[in-house]
C-alpha cells in the first residue's frame, strides 16, 4: 500500500469517526430533557409564541429532518447557533480555544521542565534517596485529584499568601504580546503570566508524574545498552553521556506521549478551567451543559473530536514515514 493510500484510508476512517460523534451527540441531545424554547423565551410567554418559536427554529420537524438539516449545516462549516448566547457556535469555539491552548501548552511546559530532570536524576541514582523521593513524588502527583490541588493552591498561594490571583486569565496572551510589541510595556504579559501559573501547575502535575516515570524507565533501559558502556570507556563525562546521548534516545517515546497528551489536554482541562475560572473550552462546555445550550455542547465535543482525529492522523503519518512497515500492517 502506498503512503498516499494509507493516508486516504486514515482520512476516511477519520470522517467515519466524526460522523459517529455527530450522530451520537445528536442522539443524546434528542434523548436529553430540556426544551430549547424555554432557553430562548424564558418560561412565561403564551403557548402561541412558544409554538411560533418552535416552528421558526424547525424544532417542530421530525427528528430525522432536524438531523439531516444539522448535517447539512456542518458540511457548510457551521457548528450551529447558540440559543442562549445568540451567536454562532463557531464564534464561541474560536473565542475560547486560544485560552485552552495557552493552558495546555503551559501545563506541558511545566511537566517537561520538572519531569525530565527529575526522571534523569531518579534513573541515575537508582535506589538512592533521590530516586525514592522522585518515585514517591510521582505517585503523589498521579494520585492527587486536580480539583483538590487547584483549590489548595488557591487557598494557600493566592488567598493566604497573596502571591497569585485566585482565578481568571487577566488578559489574553496575544493581547499581552501585542502590547509588549507596540508599546514596550510588559505589564499585561506579566498579568497573564501571574494568572496562568497556578492552573498550569494544577493541570501539569499529573503529567509531570507520568513523564517522570516514563523518563526514569526509559533512561534505565538506555543506560544498560552497550553504547553507554562504550562512551563511558571512551572517558566521556557522565553528565554528557546522560543528557546528550542517553536522554536524547529516551526522548522519542516521551515526545510521542507528550504530543498525544497535548490532545488530551485540549479537551480534558474541564476541571482545572472550572476551578480557576479559566475562560477556555472546558469551562464553556460546563456552562453550556448547565444551561442546556446543546448546540454549544455539540459544537465543542465535535471540535475536540476533530482535533483528536487530526492529531492521530498526523501521528500515524509520522510513524508511517519513520517506519514504512506500519503501512503494510
Amino acid at each position, binding site marked *: 500500500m502506498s503512503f498516499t493510500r494509507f493516508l486516504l484510508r486514515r482520512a476516511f476512517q477519520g470522517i467515519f469517526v466524526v460522523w459517529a460523534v455527530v450522530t451520537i451527540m445528536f442522539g443524546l441531545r434528542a434523548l436529553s430533557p430540556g426544551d430549547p424554547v424555554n432557553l430562548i*423565551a424564558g418560561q412565561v410567554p403564551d403557548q402561541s409564541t412558544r409554538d411560533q418559536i418552535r416552528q421558526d427554529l424547525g424544532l417542530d420537524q421530525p427528528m430525522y429532518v432536524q438531523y439531516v438539516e444539522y448535517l447539512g449545516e456542518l458540511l457548510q462549516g457551521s457548528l450551529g447557533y447558540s440559543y442562549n448566547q445568540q451567536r454562532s457556535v463557531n464564534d464561541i469555539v474560536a473565542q475560547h480555544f486560544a485560552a485552552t491552548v495557552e493552558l495546555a501548552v503551559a501545563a506541558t511546559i511545566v511537566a517537561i521542565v520538572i519531569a525530565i530532570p527529575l526522571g534523569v536524576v531518579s534513573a541515575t541514582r537508582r535506589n538512592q534517596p533521590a530516586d525514592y523521593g522522585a518515585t514517591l513524588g510521582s505517585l503523589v502527583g498521579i494520585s492527587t485529584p486536580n480539583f483538590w490541588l487547584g483549590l489548595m493552591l488557591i487557598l494557600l498561594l493566592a488567598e493566604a499568601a497573596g502571591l497569585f490571583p485566585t482565578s481568571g486569565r487577566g488578559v*489574553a496572551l496575544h493581547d499581552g504580546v501585542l502590547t509588549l510589541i507596540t508599546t514596550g510595556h510588559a505589564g499585561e504579559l506579566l498579568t497573564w503570566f501571574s494568572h496562568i501559573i497556578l492552573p498550569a501547575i494544577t493541570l501539569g502535575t499529573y503529567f509531570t508524574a507520568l513523564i517522570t516515570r516514563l523518563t526514569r524507565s526509559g533512561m534505565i533501559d538506555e543506560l544498560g545498552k552497550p553504547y553507554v558502556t562504550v562512551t563511558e570507556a571512551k572517558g566521556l563525562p557522565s553528565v554528557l553521556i546522560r543528557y546528550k546521548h542517553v536522554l536524547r534516545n529516551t526522548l522519542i517515546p516521551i515526545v510521542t506521549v507528550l504530543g498525544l497528551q497535548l490532545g488530551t489536554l485540549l479537551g480534558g482541562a474541564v476541571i482545572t478551567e472550572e476551578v480557576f475560572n479559566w475562560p477556555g473550552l472546558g469551562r464553556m462546555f460546563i456552562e453550556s451543559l448547565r444551561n442546556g445550550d446543546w448546540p454549544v455542547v455539540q459544537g465543542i465535543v465535535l471540535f475536540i473530536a476533530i482535533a483528536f482525529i487530526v492529531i492521530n492522523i498526523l501521528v500515524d503519518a509520522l510513524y508511517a514515514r519513520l517506519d514504512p512497515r506500519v503501512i503494510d500492517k
Partner: protein
Amino acid sequence: MQGADNASADRRTVLKLTGVAGATATLGSLAGCLGEGEDGNGDEIDLDSLTITQGEFPDVEDPNDHITGPYFNVYDHVYEPLFEVTPGEEPSPGVVTEWDHTGDGSVELEIRDDVVFHQGQQLVAEDIAFTLDRQIDPDVPPVSDQVAGLGSLEGAEAIDETTLELSYSGAPQLAEFEFGNYLRAVSQEWFESDAPVSDGVISGDDADAFNGTGPFQVVDYDPAQNRIVMEPFEDYWGEVPELEEVTFEGETSDSGRVSSLLADETNLIDNVLPDDVGEVESDPDSAIEQVTSFRNIFLAMKNEVEPFDSQEFRQAMNYAVDNEDIIDGVLSGFGHPMSQPTPPGVNGYNPDLEPYEQDLDEAERLVEDAGYTEDDPAEITLTAPEGRYLNDADIGRRAADQIDQLPNVDCEVDIVPFDVVSDANSAGPDDEEIPFFLIGWGVITGDADYGMFGFFHDDGGVQSFRDDELQSELEATQVEEDPDTREAMLQEVNEMAREKAPWVFLHQQESIYGIDEALEWEPREDESVFVWEIS
C-alpha cells in the same frame, strides 16, 4: 393610576422639584462617599474603582434579550431604566419626567430632551418605541423573554421627539409596574447604522457593542473572560459619577467568588452559600450583607393529576412540611417562611396571612379525607433541581422526608437537572410525568400579578394550577383601575390561593452577599445591584 396624580405624587413632586431625579440623587451620594475608605485593619483602600463579581454573567450583548437579575445588574448601568424603581413601590421619574394616563388604555410619557447615547445619538421617543417592539413583538428579534415582564403592554408610538404614547390592556397600575421596571432605550439610529448586529440581535465582542444612555459607558469588554469595564459617561444627563471605574466579572464557582473577595480582588460578590458565610465573616476586611428577596421557593402541585386534584391532599402537604426546620437545618437560617404566593414588600401581599405550621396529625387526617389510607397510601415523587437555587436538592430531600413521615403517603424524591423541572413547569396542569416539583420564582416587577398570573391562569405559559374561581379573580385585578381597590383584590387572591394550596409554600430565599468591609450598601429585595447605591 393617573400619571403623577396618585398617592405617590408627593415623592415624585419632591424629586421633580429638586430638578435632578432618581439616579442623579443617589449618584450624588456615591460621588460623595467613594474615593476613600479603610479596611478592617485600618489600612486605606482604593475605592476609585469598584469590582463586582457575580455567579452569573450576561452571555449576550443585546440589552433586550434576557430577564435575569444578574443580566440587569450589569446592563442597567449602561442602558438605564427610564424610571427610578424602588422595590414594591410605583416608579418615580428618571429619563421619563412625567406621565399621564389618558383613560382609554394608553399613557403619555414625557421624556427629557437632554439625554444622549454613549455613541453620540440624541434620545428621542421613537427610540423607546423601537426598543419596546424589540422586547414584546415575537416577530422582531431578539426573541425576548423580557416580554414576560411587559405582558400588558401592547405597543408604543412616538407623538413627537419627547412624547411617547404607550398602549396597554388591563389596569394602569399593572402597566406602570411593568413599564417602570422594564422600559429601556436602544438607539434606533445606531442599531440601523453602526451597531454590530447579527440576525437582528446586537452581538459583538468589544466595547462598541454597547450604546446606552446610562451613567456608565463600557470601555472594555471581554466576553471570554466574563468581564466588562465601565467608566463614567461625561455627557450623562444627570450628575456624572466620580467613581473612575466599575468592573463586573463573572465567576461561576461559589468558592471562587469567596476566594476573590478574601484575596481583595473584588469588592462585592453575590450568592454566598450559607456554609461560606462564617469564612467571610471571620475575615476582618469583609462582611456579609443579606436581605429576604422577592424569590419564592415552593413545591408546585398540578391539580389535574391525582392525588393533587384534591384540595385536602394539597393542604395536607403544606401541614406535613416544616418550613422552619428546612430554613434552620438546610439554609442555616437564611430564609423566610412563605405564607402566600406573594412575598412581603410586593404590591398585593396580604399581611394577615400566616404560614402553614407543621401538624402531622392534621396532615394525616386530610390525606385520609382525600381517600388514602395506611393500607392504600398515596404514592408520590417530588422532583427537585440541583444547583439552581440555594441548596435546592437538599431542600427537596428534606421536604420529601417530612412528607414521607405520614403513614398514608409514600413520598420519594428525584433530583434532576433544572431543565427537567423547567420543562415540567411549562407542561401544563394535566401533565402526569412530573406533577410535583420544586421551583423558584422571583416577583421582580414588585406586583403580585407577576407572581401568580403565569402559574394560575390559562394564558400564563407556566400554568400548573387550573381553578376557575382563582382565574376569574386574577382577571378582575388586571382591569381594576383604582390602585387601592386593586391592591385589596390582590390580597384576597392571595388568601384564596393560600386556602386552595396550589403549592407547598416553603420560603422566600435570602440573598446573601459578601462585601468589602469598607463599603456601605443595603441589598435590595429585587436582587438588583446598583453601583450608585453603594457608598
